[in-house]
């Protein structure tokens, strides 16, 4: 009897916790959503439900002149390629960090993290000069390559910890069973570390997705701009008027697809990575 009671208590507590977490994360976002659904003239309203509900801000965002759809696509390409590349390179490096023994390991790790520390504003002018010289202005690679500067360290460090947590007995066993080191890694470690890899991918993707200054500096053609750059070009009807409503609408529009994507991929990717795990 006591156990069921305490179990009920516990699940009650759990759900209270879940509700608290969700409320904490979503309340400000709700405000964003509400603000995006107000008319421009009601923007200072503080009622909890917009009345009347208006989609004028969303229409403004998708006005063809803003090129927002194209910008979302560009963001997807830049952030997607950055994530894939960063994860690929980082997987190799993290594997070496977690599994191989070599000198200068600490140095390499320190170097990797040190590189992600310089304020972007200080590196953008030299990079701009470099890319202008090699003719990379208005190309995807001009945005992808600099994004690696923060994406790679993030991926290397995270993957190293996750690989490191895998008991290496499994790998050894697989190798005893005749797998090569690479196979052992692919079939044993990767599936087990799937949640970690997936989380790293999400976080890297979002970091790249939200990058602004580099994307702004490296492009000057509207068809090459990314979503954050497009958002920065939202305006009110006149110079001083804050386009707050359409900015919030854009905020909703760049956030929600991400979350939906995560939801869709969550199961599939984790399942994919897990498939083939040595049972």
């Amino acid at each position: 009897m006591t156990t069921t009671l305490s179990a009920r208590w516990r699940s009650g507590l759990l759900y209270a916790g879940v509700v608290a977490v969700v409320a904490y994360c979503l309340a400000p976002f709700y405000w964003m959503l509400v603000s995006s659904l107000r008319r421009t003239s009601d923007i200072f309203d503080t009622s909890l439900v917009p009345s009347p509900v208006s989609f004028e801000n969303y229409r403004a965002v998708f006005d063809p002149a803003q090129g927002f759809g194209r910008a979302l696509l560009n963001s997807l390409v830049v952030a997607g390629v950055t994530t894939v590349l960063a994860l690929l390179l980082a997987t190799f490096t993290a594997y070496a960090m977690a599994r191989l023994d070599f000198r200068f390991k600490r140095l390499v790790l320190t170097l990797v993290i040190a590189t992600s520390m310089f304020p972007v504003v200080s590196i953008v002018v030299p990079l701009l000069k470099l890319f202008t010289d090699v003719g990379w202005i208005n190309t995807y690679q001009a945005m992808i390559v600099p994004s690696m500067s923060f994406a790679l360290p993030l991926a290397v460090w995270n993957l190293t910890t996750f690989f490191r947590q895998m008991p290496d007995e499994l790998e050894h066993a697989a190798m005893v069973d005749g797998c090569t080191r690479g196979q052992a890694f692919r079939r044993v470690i990767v599936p087990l570390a799937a949640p970690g890899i997936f989380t790293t991918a999400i976080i890297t993707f979002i970091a790249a997705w939200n990058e602004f200054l580099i994307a702004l500096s490296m492009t000057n053609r509207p068809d090459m701009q990314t979503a954050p750059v497009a958002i920065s070009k939202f305006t009110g009807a006149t110079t001083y008027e804050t386009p707050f409503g359409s900015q919030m609408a854009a905020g909703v529009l760049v956030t929600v697809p991400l979350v939906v994507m995560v939801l869709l991929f969550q199961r599939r990717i984790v399942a994919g990575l897990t498939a083939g795990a040595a049972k």
Partner: protein
Amino acid sequence: MTKTEVPPEATDGPASAPVTRRRLTGNPARAAAGSGRMAALLVSPTLLVLSVVVAYPTLMALKESLYGPKGLDPATGFISDTEPFVGLRNYADILGEAGDRFWNAFWNTTFFTVVTVGLETVIGVAMALIMHKAFRGRGLVRAGILIPWAVPTAISGLLWRWIFNSDGIANTLIGHQVLWTTEGFHAKVAVIVAEVWKTAPFIGLLVLAGLQVIPKEVYEAARLDGARAPRQFWHITLPLVKPALLVAVLFRCMDALRMFDLPYILVGAQKHSVETLSMLAQNEASNVRFGPASAYAVLLFLYVFLIALAFVRLLGADLVGGGAVGRRPRRRREVAA
């Protein structure tokens, strides 16, 4: 799950990989060299990419920090084409003449980092623990907590500025008019609230992933031992997610130390209560004084670097597997047991 046929001595100590290799190949010397070569092969692409995208501009910035702003020629009214070499004077000026502003920004930066990362850690870990429990709709909730982190910083700065407006929802809710965007401690509070909201999910997600890769056997063993929930948390869960947590905290610290957009958009430029080191660097750069701006950036870089070094030390055993101290070998035995 665990393979008992692996002899314990093969898994202990830093030399585990080469040892295994020897067992497989039967050639110790070649294996050790192979391990080093393989490591070089695996690590070099990363280092190569980073040196192109970071080392080059960073060195340029270092060099730039030794040059002063271009002077104005009073006769022609034009700014000269070249920047004068001033050696370390930019640094001397920052710490001397502009010292008050620098140290104010330094303490603001440190204060924000300590407070926000501290709060984020507590909230993030709590989020992770809750979401690690199985319940219906867990995937949905997990995607939901991504939202604050996924909102672009600039947009979230605007959102919070709206919330903290003098007639905004924050004041409506607390039923008292606080002028959040004026100088004072309340401005710091506004920045902290917004920053913690946005980045606690970052720690939460990484810790959650850390929890998910803990082998279930560990908990089962603990349950068999009769460990109670709090004890389980402090003695099993926390030590096991420590590497993931520390890496998350490290990256949060580095980001917080470079905090710029949020105070700039939410409270505004030139506000002493919230001015950070990055804002100073940005201020110099925007006034076309690239030398002093680079000097600020270098100082900030050094500061962040020291923190990172401390973390590497702290994490060393867990991450680098340096000395055989730390918990890895012990845990392995637990698992293997």
